[in-house]
């Protein structure tokens, strides 16, 4: 049985059906690629899964239905995500941006913060070590810059911090929304290495990755789902999907080849 599956997942914005009866799923430890032209509903699919937009249909995660839950409850169940346009808190430190990812695991609350300082600080220290560990998987310099504001980092490091924030939640399913958006080709190669590291370090983690860059998709995911106009139009290995008539048409029909120069 798959870790995560949707059945007939649908999102409507007024007259527009952004996600149209989508059945998709991912196994434990699998990386699923999600492709499709601009505006085909990929981000909306993530938003529906994470509870940010209302949806109809079924989402089953670890054997239990998700719909109706608030985003923070869904995170608590074990789904973490990144965003297409970075959503880091630029004024906060690198560490703080990763630590917030551990929110659902934190035990100390207001009482400990105010009156049981030693207990809280030992938890914070341990969390900082975890954060440092995650950051060092990608770039050891990030640890030394842990108390710098994230806004001072270059684009690729910001993306890494955002991925670390999602990983810090110890999710079972990680949703990556176009991690290579806004990166140079060299940075994209580095990012792919980073994703490979995640794969090795967390073999049980399931990942769904949205990408316009077919090079990235081919490199990190074995199975691919293609969207067009909110519908799933193809599913299979990268090679199968790339050969699919409808997929080729969807991309070519909009004036951009499968090499996917189109980026949001």
């Amino acid at each position, binding site marked *: 049985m798959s870790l995560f599956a949707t059945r007939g997942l649908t999102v409507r914005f007024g007259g527009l059906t952004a996600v149209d009866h989508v059945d998709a799923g991912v196994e434990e430890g699998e990386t699923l690629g999600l492709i499709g032209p601009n505006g085909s509903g990929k981000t909306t699919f993530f938003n529906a899964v*994470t*509870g*940010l937009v209302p949806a109809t249909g079924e989402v089953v995660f670890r054997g239990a239905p998700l719909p109706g839950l*608030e*985003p*923070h409850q869904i*995170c608590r169940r074990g789904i*973490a*995500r990144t*965003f297409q346009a970075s*959503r*880091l*808190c*630029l*004024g*906060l*430190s*690198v*560490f*703080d941006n990763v*630590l*917030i*990812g551990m*929110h*659902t*695991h*934190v*035990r*100390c609350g*207001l009482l*400990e*913060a*105010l009156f049981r300082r030693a207990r*809280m*600080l030992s*938890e*914070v*220290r*341990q*969390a*900082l*070590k*975890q*954060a*440092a*560990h*995650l*950051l060092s998987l990608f770039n*050891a310099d990030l*640890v*030394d*810059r*842990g*108390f*710098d*504001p994230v806004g001072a980092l270059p684009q690729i490091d910001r993306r890494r911090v955002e991925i670390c*924030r999602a990983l*810090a939640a*110890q999710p079972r399913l990680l949703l990556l929304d176009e991690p290579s958006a806004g990166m140079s080709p060299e940075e994209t190669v580095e990012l792919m290495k980073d994703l490979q590291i995640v794969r090795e370090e*967390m073999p049980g983690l399931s990942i769904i990755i949205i990408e316009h860059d077919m090079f990235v998709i081919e490199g990190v995911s074995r199975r691919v789902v293609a969207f067009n106009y909110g519908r799933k139009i193809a599913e299979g290995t990268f090679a199968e999907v790339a050969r699919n008539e409808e997929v080729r048409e969807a991309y070519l029909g909009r004036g951009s080849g499968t090499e996917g120069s189109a980026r949001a």
Partner: protein
Amino acid sequence: MIGVWAVELGLFVLVVAALLAERPIAVGLTVAAIGILLLAARTSPRLWGWVATAFRTHRAAALAGAAVLALALPFFLRASPYWTFVATMALIYVTIGQGLNVQMGTAGVINLAGAAFAGLGGYTVGLLTVRLGFAPWLAFAIGPLVAMVVGALLFIPILKVRGHYLALVTIAFGFIFNILMNNLEFTGGPQGIKNIPTLRLFGHAFTTAPTLFGVTLPSHANFYYAALAMAALVTWLAWRLYNSWVGLTLNTLRDDEIAAKCSGVSVTRHKLLAFSIGNLFVGLAGAFYAVMVGFVSPPDFDFGYSLVMLSVVILGGLDSIPGVVLGACLLIPLPERFRMLHEYRLLLYGAAIVLMLLFRPRGLWPAGVRRYGLGSPAGSFGAAGTRAEGVGVSR
């Protein structure tokens, strides 16, 4: 360490001189001296760097020095009950500022009804003591709780409302509060509530002049010391709150609500938490004010004071705990010193806010990154051996 104390003592002497100087020449000279010193510090990076480093490395000594000077202040101001009173007001505003800062600075929850929440604390004390005969200390303890609970009740219906609607609701609440106080019978209408009994500590009434070390201080010194304790306590709590998971969570939902939600933060719960803590502090200051002056009336808590409170936080620096202290200690005494400014007080505050937003949007003393009071460099957390552990704090 001696250097830190010397700087503090020098500033203290100048400030006291500026406050007490009678003749315009003397006032001008001391103010000019302070101005030149600050300017020199700001324009000479070396001097400023030295001061900043000294205060950072000897933080405990700096705090101890500041505490000693704050405790000594009434002795220097003893000839002037008026200035003792103004200093007390500054401390009350420190308390209020810390409360508003938890809401607006840390959590980004705009509250433009600070005066009304202070008024809730103050009126509660007045009503409970004068109308119902409660013991003053008990009423003083209940006042802030009422401010907190009313704030929460006001907030819950609009929990789901996003953006600046809450700001509008708080403005409306401030006006409604004032209109109600003006028109309700049991709150005394425009006259307010008079003869609020004063506090007693170990049999010593706060209205009798205290004698310390053989020196008799004005009776206002009682309130000064009490306000100092209150402001110090609230500032200490605010610092701990900021340097904790709670502070981090509030900051995150302030900066990006969606990122916070998707990290598992219950946004409404935490906004309510920040709003409640803030109103508790503000209500505490209001209750204190009521027992200090002995009466409450609607004009003491009108919208203008909400703006004063707002400017304290913005001037000092949103989300900056030392900034709030600095903001209150600058903004409250200043118009009192220059009486001609007093008429134009609100104008002054308005100008201060606009200038700050234009030229120094993060305030006079901007908030730094959160270090949780650990004092360790970032690299020290990257120690080898953590690789083996799993991800997550809960183990």
